């Protein structure tokens, strides 16, 4: 066993706030050993980031370490002076942050920010520092490092930036790198490049990694050991294999089950853990998880659980903090009742509810000068010639990387962005440029972040009563209140919430309010724009279940826009894959997940990190960056990143969508050739 590098020994951290003392971290002990990758997982607000920052000797002004020691190579860093901390951060521990866009100073070039640390700490010359920075960028395969060094952060892409922060963290040859959700802000295809790079770095150097995340797929791929943190306390720790195969703590077990993933059984609802994180200001005396635990006993809520060591197959210490460790739990969920309405029922070929024909949305950004000089208008081709239809009660999932135009597509259908060309038919009627009250009533949208889509100054009552009054649904005050209560019941929120404000609710609850608002007018078509992306994994499943229940009840159709393929697979009957403003593949969920694949779809599918596949499966790395939609490649838009053999037509002719059994592919390759492709997932996963 390697010697310990970072030891966190019985550490408690608290924050002083207006409403009281927040116990962010409580008596956590863990250690990261030389050369290992330790993953720390937990919901947002569980204290995992606080712990990571504390390991670098960094706490916000109102935070303090109440007890315990943090040892780095045997020295207690909580007693470090300012100068010692600077040296620790500059030389021995590197850090990679969640959001690469905001972590770099917009005022200085990449090169300057790479070099300043080593110039300051190692007292080397600029020339030498530049040499080292260049060598590091080359080592992590950044194309054209010289020009990257001279660019400013806003001139490079997010994925590129995150690779550069790795370079920055590695530049001082640290022993430990702390990563705080480094891929959360990245697309799957960029994420896979990042993870590859990380694997490469680990094989080359002996750097230890403390990886903070809530993504089980990444944990399965990277981690040697895993620690689970709940409400500021470590609840379980063990090797990756043990944690995935034999989780002992009820919370870990629930977490493993709540992942909405590809291998989840589509015939049953996803499991979602009941309840919420407890209030960290007034914690109950016993186990913090007891109120949400299905096997809790009296002792759980009265005494703190002591550590238990469980024998593990691989000999790696497996620690659990639970009175009832190892109690088998039942996670059986109800079967999904398929929509028996007009879709999927007997009269399957009814009229489509919504039909989109050759829809185009270009954003013109000609300047004053361009217009004066009569230049050809410069356009961003956000949505370019997209056609599809949605049946009543059906869900069409739209997937693609950020910037592919999927959100614009949703907005163009709702006329939040006026379509440049093409038609949108609703129940056979052209609504492309039509605006009417009744249309607003039948077509609704739910946005990604409920924090910004709900007015923070309004109570839920005001929020929910607005659409009811606007569309004349409620007749009088009493009726209005009754309807608001019914809406809360519908999305399983307690009636007592009616006069609360959004900030008093958790993220998942806020999203429920947003859903209730959309359903207040009984819409027949709802655009769900990344509705689960801002939520914790343990809540995502419950939101999807809710949407599915509502769909069954009201026969609503969804356009479910997301970059999360697992979520899309769970809820959609059909999936459309979008790349750079165009659809490349449309088909039923089963069709899309099986060959024939569009080369892009295959790359997307293979990028998903799966928790339950022990060996990382072979993923296709897409070369380079997604081209700018202002200047898309000629012919097939995907050709610049396509890994299949290319013919002449690829660069000259835009491929048409070819349909077979309702499965459409836009590729110049022959159908038979695409059909012969190896499947990404074993058949046993998909049935």
């Amino acid at each position, binding site marked *: 066993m390697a010697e310990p590098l970072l030891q966190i020994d019985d550490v408690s951290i608290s924050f002083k706030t207006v409403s009281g003392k927040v116990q962010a971290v409580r008596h956590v002990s863990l250690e990261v050993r030389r050369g290992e990758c330790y993953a720390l997982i937990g919901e947002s607000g569980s204290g995992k980031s606080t712990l990571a920052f504390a390991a670098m000797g960094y706490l916000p002004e109102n935070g303090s370490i109440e007890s315990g020691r943090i040892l780095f190579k045997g020295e207690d860093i909580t007693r470090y002076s300012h100068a010692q901390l600077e040296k620790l*951060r500059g*030389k021995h521990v590197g850090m990679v942050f969640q959001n690469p866009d*905001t972590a770099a100073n917009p005022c200085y070039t990449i090169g300057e920010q790479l070099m300043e640390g080593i110039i300051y700490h190692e007292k080397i010359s600029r020339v030498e520092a530049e040499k080292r920075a260049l060598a590091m960028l080359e080592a992590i395969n950044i194309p054209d490092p010289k020009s990257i060094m001279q660019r400013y952060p806003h001139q490079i892409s997010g994925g590129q930036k995150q690779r550069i922060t790795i370079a920055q963290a590695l530049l001082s040859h640290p022993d430990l790198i702390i990563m705080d959700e480094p891929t959360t802000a990245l697309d799957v295809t960029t994420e896979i490049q990042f993870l590859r790079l990380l694997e490469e770095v680990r094989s080359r150097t002996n750097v230890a990694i403390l990886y903070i995340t809530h993504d089980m797929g990444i944990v399965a791929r990277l981690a040697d050991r895993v620690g689970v943190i709940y409400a500021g306390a470590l609840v379980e720790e063990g090797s990756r294999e043990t944690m995935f195969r034999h989780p002992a703590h009820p919370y870990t077990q629930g977490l493993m089950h709540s992942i909405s993933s590809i291998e989840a059984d589509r015939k049953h609802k996803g499991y979602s853990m009941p309840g919420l994180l407890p209030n960290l200001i007034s914690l109950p005396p016993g186990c913090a998880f007891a109120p949400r635990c299905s096997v809790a006993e009296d002792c759980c809520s009265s005494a703190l659980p002591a550590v238990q060591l469980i024998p593990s197959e691989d000999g790696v210490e497996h620690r659990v903090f639970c009175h009832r460790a190892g109690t088998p739990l039942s996670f059986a969920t109800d079967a999904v009742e398929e929509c028996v309405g007009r879709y999927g029922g007997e009269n399957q070929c009814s009229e489509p509810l919504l039909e989109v024909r050759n829809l185009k949305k270009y954003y013109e950004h000609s300047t004053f000068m361009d217009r004066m000089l009569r230049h050809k208008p410069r356009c961003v081709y956000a949505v370019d010639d997209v056609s599809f239809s949605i049946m009543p009660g059906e869900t069409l999932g739209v997937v693609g990387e950020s910037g592919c135009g999927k959100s614009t597509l949703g907005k163009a259908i709702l006329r939040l962005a006026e379509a440049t060309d093409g038609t949108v038919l609703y129940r056979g009627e052209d609504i492309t440029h039509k605006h009417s009250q009744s249309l607003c009533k039948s077509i609704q949208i739910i946005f990604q972040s409920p924090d910004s889509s709900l007015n923070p100054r309004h109570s839920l009552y005001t929020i929910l009563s607005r659409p009811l009054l606007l569309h004349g649904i409620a007749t009088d005050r009493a009726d209005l209140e009754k309807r608001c209560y019914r809406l809360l019941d519908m999305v399983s929120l307690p009636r007592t919430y009616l006069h609360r404000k959004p900030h008093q609710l958790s993220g998942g609850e806020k999203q429920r309010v947003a859903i209730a608002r959309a359903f207040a007018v009984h819409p027949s078509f709802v655009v769900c724009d990344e509705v689960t992306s801002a939520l914790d994994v343990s809540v995502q499943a419950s939101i999807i279940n809710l949407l599915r229940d509502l769909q069954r009840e009201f026969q609503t159709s969804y356009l479910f826009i997301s970059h999360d393929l697992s979520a899309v697979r769970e809820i959609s009957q059909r999936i459309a894959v979008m790349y750079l403003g165009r659809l490349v593949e449309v088909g039923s969920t089963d069709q899309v997940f099986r060959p024939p694949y569009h080369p892009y779809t295959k790359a997307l599918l293979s990028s998903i990190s799966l928790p339950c596949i022990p060996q990382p499966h072979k993923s296709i790395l897409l070369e380079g960056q997604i081209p700018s939609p202002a200047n898309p490649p000629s012919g097939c838009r995907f050709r610049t990143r396509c890994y299949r053999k290319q013919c002449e037509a690829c660069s000259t002719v835009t491929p048409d969508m070819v349909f077979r059994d309702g499965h459409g592919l836009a590729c110049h390759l022959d159908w038979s050739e695409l059909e012969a492709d190896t499947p990404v997932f074993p058949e046993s996963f998909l049935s």
Partner: protein
Amino acid sequence: MSPVYILKRFCFMLVTLFCISIIIFAITMVLPGNLAQVILGEFATDDALRALEDQMGLNLPFYEQYGKWIWGVLHGDFGHALSMDQPILPLLLFRLKNSAILAAFSIVLVTIIAIPLGVFAALHRNSAVDRIIQVSSYVGISIPEFATGSLLIIAFAGPVLNLFPSAGYVPFSENFSEALSHIVLPVMTLVIVLIAHIMRQTRSEMIHVMQSDYVRSARLRGLSNRMVVFKHALRNALMPTITVLALDVGYLIGSVVVIEEVFAYPGIGRLIVYAVTSRDVPLLQATVLTVACVYCLVNFLADLAYGLVNPRIRYQ
């Protein structure tokens, strides 16, 4: 910063100035009162009035009058000040120079006092020193200038502490120390008024920037406190301050009427007031246009300075 950006900002400034000149000319045209009447007095005969109107081109259509005027302005000919019967240009330049001296001293002082104060207050947020800085700067901005000016006169030019002259003006070319002592009190008044502006702007922006991710990441890369504050935070925090500074320069040039009045200082602000009260239309047009020019020029310079510190400004 690309030359295209500079050229663009410059063209933008010219267009703005053109619009302003039209507005100024139009407004002075529709002011009540006949220019010929003003010159000849109320007992002039109709014939004499008509003759003068013809001579001055007052009966020409608007665009022709404007054309003649702007053509003159572009050639440095602002016409004659009717009330003083002398060419406007030398008078204007003299007054502009005086106001500029006042403005320059004030703005330099405000910059070197307010920005460090703002940074200090931000870094020691909610401390006693921060509170004192905040409150005293508020007092400065809430008391009207004439009151501040008068108080300063009582304090420093009164019978007790007769340190500086209370009013008047001495050219710098004549007697440097005399000239300096004459502008001490007006400059002090302006600084007291403006400090709160710049200080508050710098403080709030600095607090905002210090909480940003990139400052945290700079800290976590082990950079020293000085590098974090002065290299990473300050440059970003100063961007909005530059804009506010430019607006304040405009204020200093054009709107210091009260200060110049209190200290009997011959600046351009007083000249505007004089032009209005004596119904001297050509003088009014010239002075207002000059102030507008200064305003635009300062904003143009601020745009350039902004482009220098902010690499994201890059017009293609």
